[in-house]
């Protein structure tokens, strides 16, 4: 074998230049380039994540503050109930001219001549139109306030709100912006007097739909979403677990179970909007359930979540080692007892993780809900899952279509709320997995 040895010696004595001929430098450069592509791909992905979150948070965090004006409102009987009919005619208190009370208070506060109509109009425009219902609710709740003067915290108009938060470019020509110079001057005057100020916006969590940004909130949508999540949880967890137990533990290997299996994998990848069409055709049109109801939404989302839960549960059941089953069967347990007393409890962390992830997915789903009519302008809290309701992501969709700039802030705020829910759910799933996951 000396023939072989001698070329080896020759290679090792080659000069350095000829070693470059096999392209080491070029190949290493290619290697470095390849690595750089990989790193930049990950960086681009993370960059977009950062931009997305930043864009939402930077636009939305101000939605959690609301500019309010606290004025001493005189609930003058002359305005509310000039003919003193409220004892006989309950409508009197409902239809009284409440904005007039606010106007009088504002005029007094700012010291405007009440006869200068345009000025007065500008002043009242600073306060939200929602004062009508706000004051009405105060009076109907306790009619004894009539005749008294009480300080009331009123919502500022969305434009004033934006101006006070510094979101309106005041260098633009006055006629081209919605907030007039006089209003800005008053705003600053009121702010200096401590009458106007920012406070935490509880309204965004409690209000329902409204065409006025300052009086719009996700409260009603949250209730709708909560109903649906409850329905999804109550239906999809038992059905999903039962289905996976059958498929994983009992089903004979035959055509039918094969079909079910392929079916479930496919259902997991069917576009969500198709489930909306199913819900519309079967639940609303055929079974005659009410449109826009949380019940139908819950059913549709259940069908959509089931495949996810089944796939996760089957994986969790598969991960339980066969020795557990053998031991239980060997001690005389029936097959059913083995599964329900031993296998399922051991698989439960995996099942719950899958369920939470499925629920989180259902919580953010919009498209199927649009089709079953949950794009409704719902002002009142739904008392039951059968009443018209809307959902958090649908509310976001509806606000995203609004033209007013203040709605962009509200939309982003609602998205932040949605994302916080999702983060909490996903963190819960991760913690559950970390805490209870067993490696066999």
């Amino acid at each position: 074998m000396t023939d072989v040895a001698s070329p080896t010696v020759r290679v090792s004595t080659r000069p350095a230049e000829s070693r470059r001929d096999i392209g080491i430098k070029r190949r290493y450069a290619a290697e470095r380039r390849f690595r750089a592509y990989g790193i930049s791909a990950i960086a681009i992905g993370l960059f977009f994540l950062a931009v997305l979150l930043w864009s939402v948070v930077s636009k939305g965090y101000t939605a959690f503050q609301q500019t309010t004006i606290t004025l001493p409102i005189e609930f003058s009987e002359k305005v509310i109930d000039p003919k003193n009919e409220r004892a006989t005619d309950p409508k009197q208190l409902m239809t009284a001219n409440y904005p007039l009370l606010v106007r009088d208070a504002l005029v007094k506060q700012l010291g405007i001549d009440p006869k200068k109509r345009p000025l007065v109009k500008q002043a009242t425009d600073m306060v939200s139109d929602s004062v009508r219902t706000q004051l009405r609710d105060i009076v109907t709740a306790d009619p004894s306030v009539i005749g008294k003067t009480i300080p009331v915290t009123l919502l500022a108009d969305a434009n004033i709100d934006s101006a006070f938060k510094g979101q309106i470019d005041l260098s633009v020509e006055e006629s081209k912006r919605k907030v007039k110079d006089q209003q800005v001057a008053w705003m600053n005057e009121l702010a200096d007097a401590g009458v106007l100020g920012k406070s935490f916006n509880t309204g965004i969590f409690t209000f329902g739909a409204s065409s006025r940004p300052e009086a719009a909130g996700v409260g009603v949508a949250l209730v709708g979403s909560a109903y649906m999540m409850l329905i999804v949880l109550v239906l999809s967890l038992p059905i999903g677990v039962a289905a996976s137990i059958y498929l994983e533990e009992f089903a004979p290997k035959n055509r039918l179970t094969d079909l079910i299996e392929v079916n479930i994998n496919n259902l997991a990848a069917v576009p969500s909007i198709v489930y909306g069409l199913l819900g519309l055709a079967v639940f609303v049109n055929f079974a005659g359930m009410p449109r826009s109801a949380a019940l139908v939404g819950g059913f549709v989302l259940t069908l959509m979540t089931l495949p996810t839960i089944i796939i996760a549960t089957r994986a969790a059941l598969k991960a339980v080692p066969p020795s557990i089953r053998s031991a239980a069967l060997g001690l005389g347990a029936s097959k059913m007892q083995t599964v329900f007393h031993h296998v399922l409890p051991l698989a439960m962390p995996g099942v719950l993780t899958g369920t939470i992830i499925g629920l989180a997915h259902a919580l953010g789903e919009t498209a199927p809900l649009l089709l079953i009519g949950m794009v409704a302008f719902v002002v009142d809290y739904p008392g039951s899952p059968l009443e018209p309701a809307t959902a958090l992501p649908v509310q976001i969709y509806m606000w995203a279509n609004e033209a007013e700039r203040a709605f962009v802030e509200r939309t982003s705020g609602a998205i932040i709320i949605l994302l916080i829910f999702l983060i909490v759910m996903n963190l819960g799933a991760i913690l559950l997995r970390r805490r209870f996951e067993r490696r066999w």
Partner: protein
Amino acid sequence: MSTSLLLLTILLIGLVAYFAGRARSLAVSGSKLATLHSLPGYHGSYVAIWAVLPAALVLAAWLIASPLYIDSSVRSALPETVRNQGAATVQLALGQVKAVATGLARLDAKEIEAVKTGSVNLRETLAAKGVALAGEGEPFMVEAAEQFNAMRGFSRWLMSAVVLLAAFAGGVYAIRNVTARFRARNQVERVMLGSLIVASSIAILTTIGIIGSMLSEAGRFFSMVSPAEFFFGTVWDPRFAAAGSEGSSGQFGLLPLLGGTLYIAFVAMAFAVPIGLFAAIYMAEYASPRLRSIAKPLLEVLAGIPTIVYGFFALVTVGPFLRDISAQLNGLLTGNYQNFIQAQSVLTAGIVMGIMLIPFVSSLSDDIITQVPRALRDGSLGLGATRSETVKKVILPAALPGIVGALLLTASRAVGETMIVVLAAGVAARMQINPFEPMTTVTVKIVHQLTGDLEFTSPQTLVAFALGITLFVITLGLNIYALYIVRKYREQYE
């Protein structure tokens, strides 16, 4: 007895039956539990099942069957003149009768008498009670409504009686079966197995429901518009007709929508595939465990963000950004500060959808790449190949079928995506190749045709189901093929 109250009663009877069965089994065993074949709990469950299950089935059957029966008998009681006017009129009359019936239930005897003699206006009387009537009520309706109410009341009464009887009979029958040697556990487990099978058949029912409902609604659409016109038409102009005005049907050409769908999906894939694939390769082959444990979950956060958030992101951030930057670019090049990218465009929707797809591509491909056997890698590295050469020449060819499957799954997601395109792609249905202009997709049009007031008889509404079944077939084809490839690939290396 209302249905929910009845259901509650059955459950209560079931609970009682459980304890009765348990006590009975303990009694027959004497003091020696070992003489029982099954544990007392199983005897209890057996009795409870017999008490609840038949009763519940009777209840369900009754609830489905009785409205159908009542409807048909009220329909046959309608006057000849109404019945001869076609199905639509009968349906309308039936609806009015039901509304009147709801109203009558809220009136007292004196008012009913007044309504019957015609001394007061039916519609106004009912309106005062909060029941809105679609038209003027006719005398026969009051009669039919009374019949309807009477039948419904009787049906309800009979249903309660039958259901409760079934619950009692079942419970008594079962409790008589309880003996020491009785195999209660086997019986209970058979019922449990049955319910497991029912649960797993829901998956199949869902598919049947999807296909059946869409086929039947799409069939109604195709009876009004010819399939050739739909599948090969190049103009989409559904023309929302006013309710009832027939004949003014628009044009329902699928091609512009399908073109937009595929174009946007293509842009999204062109954006997501290189990034996702390179990220997957880096994660699988280069990244340290620490980097992997941070970067992988972070990238997957992108997959967990709801699509409506992406849509909003496209609408308020990406779209305006592309519009402004195109205006700046145009200005620098030609001096004319006119934007050439629209805020809503194929590019906007494609890029944002691409961002959403990155984690799908990367985590699916990551799984596939890590499944390539270690030996192939080691062999290549041992022959002196660099890592990138190993990836390019050995791992990727080996993983190619699996990656193609993963990409097809991703593509099916891109085709079916709704919220991003609804907010970012535009609504104009046209065929063109400029990615800077808006186009629309199948999913956008489904949403548009089905929001607002619906009439399930007009082609404008029903077309959504034809679009839906098209979408379903496309994604189903992609999914089945992709899952088949991925499965094949797995078997190859397992």
